[in-house]
């Protein structure tokens, strides 16, 4: 058995708190919400998590290998738990002993026997001992070792059986019973900011612990979220038109539970947010929680997983540039080149589902196609009946008639995108290989030029 105890600090008194709405005081003077949040976060490591006095204790012996061994897990807990409010960590073979160590600022046994470590520790570290510390210290009993050396019958008669029970539990002589924390079905986290914030990017500092709790909750459920919603509640001393608060929803292309990615997306979005009034409270909800298929660990050195991280990178870019500027193509069935490719924002459902589908080989189109398109086509100068673009163009192959589009109406007008074009492959030494087309401008739907029935040349694509 290997127990970890995470101690929480006493809750600071809130001077402006309304006593009627204040939460009921915790018997140990800590914030009950912080303790529950820490317990939810701990559930990702083991299902054996319990609330104990002013701490959260968990039993992690069976989880060591999953989290890459004891040193790695120790480092991770020491690194992350302080962000969630833990002020002390102790590792010991029993929950009570871990709690005692955490209170005394001792991290672990350090290779010694439990008895040797516990004996010199002060009596007050044991909660039952702290109750009777005064009479005991008058009798010269200040450490756990001195207490243990006294006759048990006398202690039981004078101070009650509870002190003996807890002492035995600390030394691992008597079993402990815990009420395990159950994983909540829905994730709601709330935090009251230590001071009022009126600058949106500064909210990230308060959001990060909430996101950590979210990621812990998701890990415990073996799930990922496709989004998070951050609500903020304005301070009670706000302007009338500011409203109760606001919210910000962030969506991701795929269900994820990576803290750093959530934080980066949140930072990009908060940087664009304006707060109407100072904010005193934050709430976080998970959106679209789905089961996440995790990759198996491998004995061999890992091959870098490419697919997922590319999407994370693109989401970060999209958060800064705007989603409409990070695009993936979808092939359309049309003969008009400009409608053959639809560029959709990355992470759009259609492209994602296609990406996961078949992995057939690419079938090249049967006809030559340019690599770049001009949007809109550029009308070319004509000299001596010959189109010019950076010099006279030599027409090589053609004409290739593309006619169609009468079905494609421009919304709210009577016009439609009918085209009648004769495509040619043209070349010159400056511009390279080009796709140009000739169009008769009268009666083709482009109503403006009906008067002048001229053949016009357009540059439409480049075989770059």
């Amino acid at each position, binding site marked *: 058995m290997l127990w970890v105890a995470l101690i929480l600090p006493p809750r600071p008194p809130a001077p402006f708190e309304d006593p009627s709405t204040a939460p009921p005081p915790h018997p140990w003077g800590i914030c009950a919400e912080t303790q529950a949040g820490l317990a939810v976060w701990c559930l990702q490591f083991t299902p054996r998590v319990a609330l104990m006095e002013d701490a959260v204790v968990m039993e992690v012996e069976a989880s060591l290998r999953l989290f890459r061994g004891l040193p790695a897990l120790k480092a991770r807990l020491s690194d992350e738990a302080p962000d969630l409010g833990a002020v002390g960590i102790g590792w010991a073979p029993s929950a009570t002993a871990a709690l005692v160590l955490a209170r005394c600022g001792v991290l672990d046994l350090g290779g010694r026997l439990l008895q040797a470590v516990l004996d010199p520790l002060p009596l007050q570290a044991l909660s039952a001992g702290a109750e009777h510390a005064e009479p005991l210290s008058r009798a010269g009993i200040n450490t756990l070792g001195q207490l243990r050396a006294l006759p048990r019958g006398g202690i039981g008669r004078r101070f009650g059986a509870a002190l003996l029970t807890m002492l035995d539990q600390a030394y691992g002589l008597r079993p402990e019973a815990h009420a395990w924390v159950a994983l909540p079905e829905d994730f709601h986290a709330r935090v009251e900011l230590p001071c009022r914030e009126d600058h949106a990017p500064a909210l990230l500092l308060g959001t990060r612990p909430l996101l950590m709790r979210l990621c812990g909750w998701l890990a415990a459920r073996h799930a990922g979220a496709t989004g998070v919603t951050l609500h903020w509640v304005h301070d009670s001393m706000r302007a009338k038109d500011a409203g109760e608060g606001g919210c910000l929803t962030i969506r991701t292309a795929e269900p994820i539970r990576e803290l750093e990615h959530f934080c980066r997306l949140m930072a990009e979005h908060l940087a664009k947010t304006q707060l109407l009034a100072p904010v005193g409270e934050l709430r976080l909800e998970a959106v679209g929680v789905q089961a996440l298929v995790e990759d198996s660990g491998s004995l061999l050195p890992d091959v*870098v997983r*490419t697919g997922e*991280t*590319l999407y*994370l*990178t*693109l989401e*970060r*870019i999209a958060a*800064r*540039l705007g989603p409409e*500027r*990070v*695009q*993936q*193509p*979808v*092939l359309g069935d049309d003969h008009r*080149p400009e409608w*053959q*490719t639809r*560029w959709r924002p*990355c992470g759009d459902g259609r492209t994602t589902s*296609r990406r996961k589908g078949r992995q057939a080989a*690419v079938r*090249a*189109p049967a*006809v030559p*196609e*340019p*690599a*770049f398109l*001009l*949007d809109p086509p550029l*009308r*070319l*100068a*004509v*000299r*001596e009946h*010959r189109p*010019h*673009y*950076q010099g006279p*163009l*030599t027409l*090589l*192959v053609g004409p290739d008639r593309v006619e169609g589009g009468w079905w494609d109406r421009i919304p709210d007008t009577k016009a439609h995108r009918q085209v009648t074009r004769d495509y040619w*492959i043209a070349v*010159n*030494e*400056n*511009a*390279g*290989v080009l796709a140009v087309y000739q169009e008769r401008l009268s009666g083709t739907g482009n109503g403006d030029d009906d008067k002048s029935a001229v053949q*016009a040349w357009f540059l439409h*694509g*480049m*075989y*770059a």
Partner: protein
Amino acid sequence: MPLPPAVAEAIWRGDALGRGTDTVWPSGFDALDADLPGGGWPGRQLTEVLLPQFSLAEWRLAGPALRRVVAGGAAVAMVGPPKRPHLPGLMHLGLDERHLVWIDARAPSERLWCTEQLIKSNAAGAVLAWLPQAAPEQLRRLQVLAQSFEGPVFLFRPLTARHDPSPAPLRVLATIDVDWALDVQILKRKGPAHETPLRLASIPGGLEHVLTPRVMRPSTMRPVAPMTVPGVDVADTVNESAGKAQVSAGPLLETVSESLHEPVALTLFPEFSHVVGRTDPAASSAGTV
């Protein structure tokens, strides 16, 4: 004294081509592979491609190597291409909709930032970035980051950057030849200087199926000499139209352009260039590139 084979293999001599990096992507051109260190486009470093203008030969030069990149399932990311990429054309290079990402970055700082993010994450299979403006120190930053990026990184830059210092270990100058070829000159590489430009046969976009023997040498198909309209002297027309222009510009423009002398009308009335089309090559290239 002859060196032991293991030592001799590990030594790079200045007159031999360097081995480049451990990851190399064959360029698809045998002649080019023979002159590139390591025998292909290098991974883990920048490759700078200088072009006289953008959207000239990017895919023709870099495209054949990308087929192998996407065959492994990795995606090709384009940062700030000069025109709208056309998927059917890229499918001729073996790219498809699952393997293409178009990042429409516009400002120079955006282009650099997006390129940096892509390189840093090492998630895309290849990065193609068009950088019209980039300072050497910005490229140096990319080069340092590129050491952790396995695929090739192509930075397309204008020809004007040729004499700027560049931290990219491989710099290539590419121009086109109308007879279905690319002229490639390696400006900088690990190894001896590259003297003679390479001529690489390249037919883009599936055109090899439709080209007839007659059009295999477009350079012999020069445009015909300008037609002379009988009875009209060009100089006279200029003087005449200059005189009439003060009276009525509209009807005159029609008569002039109908008599196959748009250049004259345009030099007189540049504001009407949108009516008869652009004639100045420099102006049209500036408007579209």
